[in-house]
């Protein structure tokens, strides 16, 4: 094939899924000349799986992306069909926002946002080769265009050697009828990247009018919707309703009878699937004693009758799918529009990455999203943002940045990936963070907006607004700590009704808020001086007062972790020469090359004793 030099740019992003979008936008917004390549321009920001964004722990990621200046939260707010704050009443650490999204509108919004972005070109092209040169990288498209880039972000999602499985049928392909990128992997292997196969899957889309909703449990959105973005002023409204149904013995029977026809159990799929998002056949085999499994029926958009069956992904043959879906209550006559399928793809072992998401041994090459072994739109977008910022920084010759585990779920996600690695597609979970009560979704701005401002993704205007709100919050907390509620018939009636002790003398409002039975809203009628604050701010204030003792305790742990994280380790620390380190620790440390003691502590196979040896070694070296 004859090639031609197309352009010389700062940053090339391969892929325009959720990771690629954030990477390209962040890079361009930081002033780097950026080109984002996609195999099909009509599928920018596609949601090939759930038509939803957020959920437990994932909602935290979206808030954090927004706090850093990313796009996902705003796009979600602009295209929300229904929104719910999950786990209300279960403690502030687990509150999480989840929204149903119009997937075609979301895609159009993202495409248009990228098109309008200065310094950014979205280009339909398949990259077939990536080569390292003296000044960076050369990317070749399937039509022979050669782009020279200082840095590159790999955000290939499930496209890299993508292979679709439906029962006994399988073929090369990307999600939703796109074609796969079949040749790029060779270049990556040549660059020394450790590639492997992962697998994921999606349920069928079915026709709305073939569902009998009368039999089904309804799930409505929240009365008062809280937006994802700290910048969204008018919250979106709920326009749709979701429904719940359950599998039964008949479903189980169909699946067990046809298990041998699943490529997963027949051994045709070699890739490892996500543990926390299993296919229905997986669930039925692994949780054999469970009588039924829940499913959610979710609309895919305003202008479509396609409905998504959340929790029902499968790689069984099409006719088996029809059979088992029709065993489910409400779906007796269901018509499939697109069948469920599994997809297998190439990705990197993330241990090969630094916390900056740069590939070890390939300066200027970054990975993000499913390519790094994660699963989920939100996980992808979070990494895309970090990779995009660093790709731009690299192109400009600036120092790369990374987020800490004690400061964000994004930092935790990336630290888990690059330090512990992952045996199956990594999904963000609340339990992955040791600092849950501090890493709340309602304070993502306080944790990350100053960092976003420093990076250059948060405008002066937004930053000032953020600081003003912060001041208002602190002033109000101080006021509540110093203002007394006096006993009255009304307040005591309310207190008795809530099941808590009535007042005999004056008591600080803050102390009343600390009672588990009371909320800040219960007290507003008795607090004549209270300023008029937004519900979000009140929620923040209530959490901080109610849990102040616990937050303080966790802050002490965070500080300790910060100390460990600020004890830097050289990338070329000679671990093999440090005696006292056990053999396994030497090997792991040499491979992972942690940037600091905090990261080293998270490596499995590195014991506290090894950490002591390292600390002592550093001290001696310092002396």
């Amino acid at each position: 094939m004859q090639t031609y030099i197309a352009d010389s740019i700062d940053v090339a992003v391969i892929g325009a899924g959720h990771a690629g979008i954030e990477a390209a936008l962040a890079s361009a917004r930081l002033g780097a000349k950026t080109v984002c390549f996609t195999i099909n321009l009509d599928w920018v920001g596609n949601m090939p799986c759930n038509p939803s964004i957020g959920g437990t722990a994932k909602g935290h990621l979206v808030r954090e992306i927004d706090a850093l200046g990313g796009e996902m939260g705003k796009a979600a707010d602009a295209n929300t069909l229904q929104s719910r704050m999950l786990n209300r009443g279960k403690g502030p650490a687990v509150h999480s926002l989840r929204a149903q999204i119009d997937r075609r509108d979301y895609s159009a919004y993202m495409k248009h946002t990228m098109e309008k972005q200065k310094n950014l070109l979205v280009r339909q092209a398949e990259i077939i080769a990536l080569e390292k040169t003296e000044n960076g990288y050369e990317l070749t498209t399937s039509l022979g265009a050669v782009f020279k880039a200082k840095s590159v972000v790999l955000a290939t999602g499930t496209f890299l050697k993508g292979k679709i499985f439906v029962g006994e049928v399988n073929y090369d392909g990307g999600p939703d009828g796109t074609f796969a990128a079949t040749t790029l992997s060779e270049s990556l292997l040549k660059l020394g990247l450790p590639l492997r196969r992962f697998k994921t899957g999606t349920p069928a889309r079915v026709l709305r009018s073939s569902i009998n909703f009368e039999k089904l449990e309804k799930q409505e959105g929240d009365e008062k919707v809280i937006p994802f973005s700290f910048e969204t002023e008018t919250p979106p409204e709920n326009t749709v309703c979701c429904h719940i149904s359950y599998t039964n013995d008949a479903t189980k029977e169909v699946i067990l009878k046809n298990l041998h026809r699943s490529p997963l159990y027949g051994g045709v799929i070699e890739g490892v699937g996500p543990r926390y998002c299993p296919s229905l056949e997986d669930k039925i085999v692994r949780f054999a004693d469970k009588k039924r499994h829940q499913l959610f029926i979710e609309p895919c958009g305003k202008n479509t009758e396609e409905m998504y069956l959340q929790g029902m992904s499968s790689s069984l043959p099409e006719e088996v799918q029809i059979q088992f879906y029709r065993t489910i209550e409400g779906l007796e006559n269901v018509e499939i529009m697109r069948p469920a399928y599994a997809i297998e793809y190439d990705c990197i072992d993330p241990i090969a990455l630094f916390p900056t998401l740069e590939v070890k041994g390939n300066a200027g090459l970054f990975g993000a999203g499913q390519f790094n072994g994660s699963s989920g739109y939100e996980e992808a977008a979070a990494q895309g943002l970090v990779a995009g910022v660093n790709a731009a920084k690299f192109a400009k010759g600036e120092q790369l940045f990374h987020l800490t585990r004690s400061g964000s779920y994004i930092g935790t996600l990336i630290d888990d990936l690059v330090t512990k690695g992952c045996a199956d597609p990594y999904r963000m979970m609340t339990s992955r963070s040791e600092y849950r009560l501090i890493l709340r979704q309602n304070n993502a701005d306080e944790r990350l907006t100053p960092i976003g401002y420093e990076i250059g993704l948060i405008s002066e205007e937004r930053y000032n607004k953020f600081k003003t709100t912060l001041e208002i919050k602190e002033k109000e907390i101080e006021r509540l700590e110093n203002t007394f509620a006096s006993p009255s018939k009304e307040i005591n009636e309310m207190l008795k009704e809530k099941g808590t002790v009535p007042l005999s003398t004056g008591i600080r409002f803050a102390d009343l808020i600390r009672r588990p039975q009371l909320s800040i809203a219960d007290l507003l009628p008795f607090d004549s001086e209270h300023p008029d604050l937004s519900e979000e701010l009140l929620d923040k204030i209530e959490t901080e007062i109610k849990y102040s003792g616990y937050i303080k305790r966790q802050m002490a742990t965070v500080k300790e972790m910060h100390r460990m994280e600020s004890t830097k380790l050289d990338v070329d620390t000679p671990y093999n020469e440090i005696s006292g380190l056990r053999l396994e620790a030497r090997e792991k440390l040499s491979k992972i090359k942690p940037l600091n003691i905090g990261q080293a502590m998270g490596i499995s196979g590195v014991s506290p004793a090894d950490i002591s040896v390292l600390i002592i070694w550093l001290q001696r070296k310092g002396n």
Partner: protein
Amino acid sequence: MQTDTIAAISTPLGEGGVSTVRISGDNAFQIAKKVFKPQSNKDLEKMKGYTAAFGKVYDGDELLDDAVALVFRNPKSYTGEDTVEISVHGGTHLIRRVLRAVTSAGARLAEGGEFTKRAFLNGKMSLTEAESVMNLISAKNDRALNIATKNKEGALSKKIKAMTDKLLFLVSQISVFSDFPEDETLCISEDDFLTSLKEILIGLNTLISDYDKGKLIIEGINTVIVGSPNAGKSTLMNLLSKTKRSIVTSIAGTTRDVVEQTAKVGDYILLLADTAGIHQTDDEVEQIGIEQALNRLDTADLCLAVFDTSVPPTEDDKALINRIKNKPTLLVLNKNDLLSSGGEYYEALDIPFVKISALTGEGEEKLVDEISKLLKLNELDPNAEMLINERQYQTVQRAVASVTEAISALEGGITLDAVGILIDDGLAALLELDGKRITTEVADEVFRNFCVGK
């Protein structure tokens, strides 16, 4: 960078059959080869672990002695490093010469406890095991030795691990709650949570109360002997310590300042303080002595109050009883050899007492029994695992505080995500206790007092 190679004499100094210098570190073999020449053509560096060579030790060209060199290979040695032990004939001077030869050959003198510190750092033993090595070496009596040995074998580690595991289970339940908060069937119930926490608290509290008793056994019982002048305090002291350090005369007020003595009484170590007889006096010197005696009374673990039963109780005696009746006191009714009657007043006081003759020693065994009962040392299971130092004690106290708070938070209706923080804190304390979670401060603190050579 390599760890330097350390050396020290690892047998007691003095005349003995054999004395040993231990060399440990990356260069142990090279250094040993410079001072030890095997009789056969064996090369120390090529010898297998756990094998020995016979030969001669030199300091430069000067022959010091015949010797046996024992080779240990990393990681199968006490420290986990390459180690050579050179044994020569016993004798303080000789072994010091050998050590000097070894240090001239490139080894550094080991700091106190450094071998054990390395053993811990190399993962050869847990922190509590390492700490018990120190206690083992300095054990003053059989009971203390017993406790140290048990801990060295990991009994305390096992007990801590059992509690750590229980807390870890609760932490895992909180993880389940955090990940799937809407599915209440996945996590154990709050009642089960509370039950578990309460069980853990009981275990921790047992460790705390045993510690106070164990401390008396390991470190000795701070004992003050009080009584009226010439009641026989010094005679008792001399009887218990089997010396004649306190001057005994029939002149009351002979002991004017505090005389101290360590005595092994039965299984226990008594850190005895003989004091001036407490009574009304105008003698200025004696008065100072009496004040000292009263001060001692406040800080003592045990008060032995000696009374002369051959004479009726005086006003001074009665005043003293008032002073001591609320302290851990044992009335020692003395001079039973002279007259067996006269003790009735004391026996009726509802304070534990024992009748002895300090002069003849009659009743001493009974005294030991009564001390044991009074301090509840008899309730201590001699085979139980035990905390052995203040660091361990403070750490368990922290765990107790966290678990106690977690229980009251849960009972008060606080959500599991917040309660989890308290449980995390308790878990962190227990992990720190056994060195599973380490800070440099802890390591330095623990190893500062270790003796050289172990």
